[in-house]
């Protein structure tokens, strides 16, 4: 006992010494601008002054670490630390944050109450009633928060508009179901007949319907108020069926239906089905939850494979990929200009294929269990005859179904491997009318590597008139001028190069050798002076940053799976997931499995090992 105590004190004092050493580093290289009374860039060293700030001000530590590690700070023109000192600082911050995150083991983290978002609501109503009605189109769209997804509990608000629409869509859905043979069979499992009173029949129907709607077993006392609704409708002279549909309509507006608030194994069943299917659990999941067999690693492993192979996982692939890679914006702000790209604007099939290519690719990867690094570079892609033509390459498409999306091998030297070779991603990281190395570079840093560049300073000085007199014309010339300014250079020398390497793809992702009659210059120089050119060498650079990519993707997936923003504590879980995936040849299906088996997803904390 005494021995451990002494060791703790020793470790504590060594930690304190190291903390002071890093404070000296910050004072030497950062205090000039970020200390004193007028700290620039909204960052003051006071934010990271005490050891306790590692927990309370994690964000500031991470930002300063990233900026030092990337060589963005200190800016050119002031004394800079050696590469070794930079690395030592970064490593120390990493270790300390990890210690902080993992102290107390892997924890479940917050479990906020969450309403179904618009997509989940639509799918759930469809599955519950067995109808095919795009009912959610009538609801307001949801924003997003957390890790950037529209299922984040924190940002699923309710407006007065929602209550009106819920009431209205519940009515519409029930009216629709009342007329459909399939739905009627599923819902109307009893009817009044000799020996069965209307009330008894209603009770039977409810007993079948309500647990599915609530996604959990329903207590006896919960049936009574619904039966009262049924009776009230009967008293007003309604026939049996309309009274039943009125009673069930209430279930679709109840908070038990609109919010996810299941507990125990039923919560896990819902988490699983909303993660991988975007809808309510099926009978198998429900049964496993009831028998308390669901929360076992061996069961979950089998289920993940089964659920991914089910058609419904298309829903997950689409919602995750389109939000992670922002390709949803192709239908909005980032829609390519119709006048400049008439073929794109006019050909609905091509547009559909472009948008779904990364979605199908991701889903196929999961089902085939290939390496997740195929997202960065791959020998395969999803092809259709439209995509073949658009990308300007020959693909070994199945002659019988050339228009259907299919997993195909790319020809040698196609330069189309990975999502950065896909038109959807190249278009959404462009302006609607031209490419932008800055947008594409920032896209890679943010979406792919999870190291978004810091915001531009609030008052960017416009380029001086004197400087523009020489009138550089090309984007590259203007950006070179931009980087001559040390303030801009600190970030743009990191953002722009990756974008330049992709300049051979136009704003809708077609290959081009020339732009405006001039040969495309796809050369780039990274912040450390290393030179590379073109998309294929960029892919090599990105594969070297595999750890950043895996960490980022695992965080995004975990945030999506949990439907909330991640905290510092969750980074311990993310580390464990990444380690698991790396041990398994970076397998894509392993990644999903590791997320499902993680402590926050299963809802069981693990004590520190």
């Amino acid at each position, binding site marked *: 006992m005494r021995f451990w105590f002494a060791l703790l004190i020793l470790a504590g004092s060594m930690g304190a010494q190291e903390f002071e050493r890093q404070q000296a580093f910050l004072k030497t290289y950062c205090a000039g601008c970020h200390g004193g009374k007028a700290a620039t860039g909204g960052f003051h060293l006071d934010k990271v002054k005490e050891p306790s700030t590692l927990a309370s001000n994690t964000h500031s530590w991470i930002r300063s670490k990233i900026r030092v590690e990337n060589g963005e700070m200190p800016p050119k023109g002031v004394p800079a630390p050696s590469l070794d000192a930079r690395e030592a600082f970064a490593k120390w911050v990493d270790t300390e944050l990890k210690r902080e995150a993992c102290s107390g083991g892997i924890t479940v983290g917050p479990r906020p109450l969450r309403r179904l978002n618009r997509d989940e609501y639509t799918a759930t109503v469809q599955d519950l009633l067995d109808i095919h009605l795009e009912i959610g189109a009538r609801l307001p769209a949801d*924003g997003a*928060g957390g890790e950037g997804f529209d299922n984040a509990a924190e940002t699923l608000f*309710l*407006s007065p508009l929602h209550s009106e629409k819920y009431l209205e869509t519940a009515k519409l859905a029930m009216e629709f179901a009342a007329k459909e043979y399939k739905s009627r069979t599923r819902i109307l499992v009893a009817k009044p007949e000799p020996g069965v009173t209307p009330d008894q029949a209603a009770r039977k129907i409810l007993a079948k319907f309500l647990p599915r709607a609530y996604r959990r077993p329903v207590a006896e006392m919960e049936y009574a108020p619904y039966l009262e*609704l049924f009776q009230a409708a009967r008293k007003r002279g309604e026939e049996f069926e309309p009274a039943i549909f009125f009673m069930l309509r209430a279930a679709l507006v109840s908070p038990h239906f609109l919010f996810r608030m299941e507990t125990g194994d039923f919560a896990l069943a819902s988490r699983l089905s909303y993660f991988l299917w975007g809808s309510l659990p099926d009978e198998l999941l429900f049964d496993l939850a009831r028998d308390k067999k669901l929360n076992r690693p061996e069961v979950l492993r089998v289920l993940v494979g089964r659920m991914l192979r089910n058609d419904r996982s298309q829903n997950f692939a689409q919602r995750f990929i389109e939000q992670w890679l922002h390709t949803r914006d192709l239908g909005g702000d980032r829609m390519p200009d119709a006048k400049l790209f008439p073929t794109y604007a006019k050909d609905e099939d091509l547009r559909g294929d472009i948008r779904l290519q990364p979605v199908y690719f991701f889903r196929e990867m999961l089902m085939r269990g290939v390496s997740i690094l195929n997202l960065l570079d791959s020998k395969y892609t999803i092809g259709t005859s439209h995509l073949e033509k658009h990308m300007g390459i020959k693909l070994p498409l199945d002659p019988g179904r050339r228009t259907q999306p299919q997993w195909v091998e790319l020809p040698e030297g196609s330069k189309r491997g990975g999502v950065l070779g896909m038109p959807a991603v190249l278009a959404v990281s462009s302006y609607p*009318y031209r490419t932008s190395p800055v947008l594409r570079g920032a896209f890679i840093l943010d979406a792919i590597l999870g190291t978004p560049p810091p915001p531009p300073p609030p008052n*960017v000085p416009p380029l001086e008139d004197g400087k523009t007199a020489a009138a550089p014309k090309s984007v590259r010339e203007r950006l070179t001028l931009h980087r001559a300014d040390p303030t801009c250079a600190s970030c743009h020398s990191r953002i722009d190069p990756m974008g330049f390497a992709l300049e051979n793809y136009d704003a809708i992702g077609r290959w081009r050798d020339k732009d405006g009659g001039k040969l495309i210059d796809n050369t780039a120089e990274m912040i450390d002076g290393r030179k590379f050119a073109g998309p294929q060498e960029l892919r090599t650079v990105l594969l070297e940053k595999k750890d950043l990519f895996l960490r980022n993707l695992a965080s995004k997936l975990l945030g999506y799976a949990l439907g909330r923003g991640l905290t510092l504590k969750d980074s311990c879980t993310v580390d464990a997931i990444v380690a698991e995936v790396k041990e398994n040849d970076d397998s894509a299906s392993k990644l999903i499995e590791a997320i499902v088996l993680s402590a926050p997803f299963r809802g069981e904390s693990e004590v520190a090992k």
Partner: protein
Amino acid sequence: MISRRTVLRGTGVALGLPWLEAMASTAAPKPPVRMAMLYMPNGVNPHAWTPEGKGKDFQLSQTLSPLADLKNQIVVLKNLWNEGSKGGDGHYVKEAAILTCATIKKTPGADIANGVSVDQVAAQRVGQQTPLPSLELGVTPVAIGVDAVVGYTRIYGSHIAWSSPTTPLARELNPKAVYERLYRASTGVGADTAQMDKLLLDRVQDDARRLRTKLGAADKHRMDEYLSVMRSLEQRVERNVGGARKDWKARVALDAKAAPPERPADHAEHVKLMLDMIAVAFQSDTTRVATFMFGNAVSNVSFRWLEGVSAGHHDVSHHGKDPDKLRQYQLINQWHVAQYAYLLKKLKGMSEGESNVLDNSMVLFASALHDGDRHAPHNLPLVLGGGGGGRLIGGQHLEYAEDTQLANLYVSMLDAFGAPVERFADSTGPLPGLMRT
């Protein structure tokens, strides 16, 4: 005359009821005053916005030229700003707070916070007098995701109407759905339907109340949100039982067959149809409060369909003094002002006894930045149009001291609207010279 004045301290405060009764007892034959706010993202070309001259003697600038026929019905306001938005980032802090005059909390979403917007202060005061308390409209869907570069959830950039500091109000984007909603709200539903709806709403609120007791603090808040929207819907249903309200009658009945198309042909038509919906809502008195967003913050909607423009909105707003970009920026600004003029004219054409709907409205055109290139929140581009029920002194270019509180404008507007407050956010009093007292 209602003179009850109330203190508002930046957050949503429930206001006293005696005032309602006073309103009912006077039963003024005067047409009601309406209030609409149109928000344009990305600021203005600073060289083409400000009118020449001051007071009554002024010339409209190029950007404001679509308002030439309406010069006597508008006031151009100079030098107002929201001090709360001076820090933070270039867009979200400015744009989310344009109607709240608060400082939003920097967050990817977990603890979103703003103030209560001026339209909602008005709606919370007089909203019960009309079938709908307010209308929130837009043309582009809510922007998805977190702007990782600046650290704000894009929720901020997609909402200007906030009913509480933590509740942004969802907008309706489909013109046909808006029309149907207005129609249903103004005609009401049959007594039977209303009774059944009420039963159903009672039922689900029971569920929520029982649930609430079992929840932690944060989740309780969500359930309160649910209860609040369900309760307000129930109250509206109740007021409508029997299909006709005793205390309200459509000033002009809506025609069921006049619904606009569901999918407008293009951006320009979409905007026009949504503005039509505001006009119809005001004319029929289905609501007296409306907000409309021409686009989300940082909107880069392509304006290449507009003659002379070859780029997206946000892109040209970062003109970097490039004369060609400045020219395009101005054209986009001017197009927005022309849409504003379209709404004003439409309201003016709707006669209402001796006056017209425009005479009895206040329609604000606002952007949350001046020069978008510099993200400058000083001297916001603002035009207030309409007669404000005889209160607004039109035909002026009012120049205030630099950095005068924008909130003062809202104090003046709320007063003319019939929902006076002592204070709104950081206001120091009404704007002088704007309203007849």
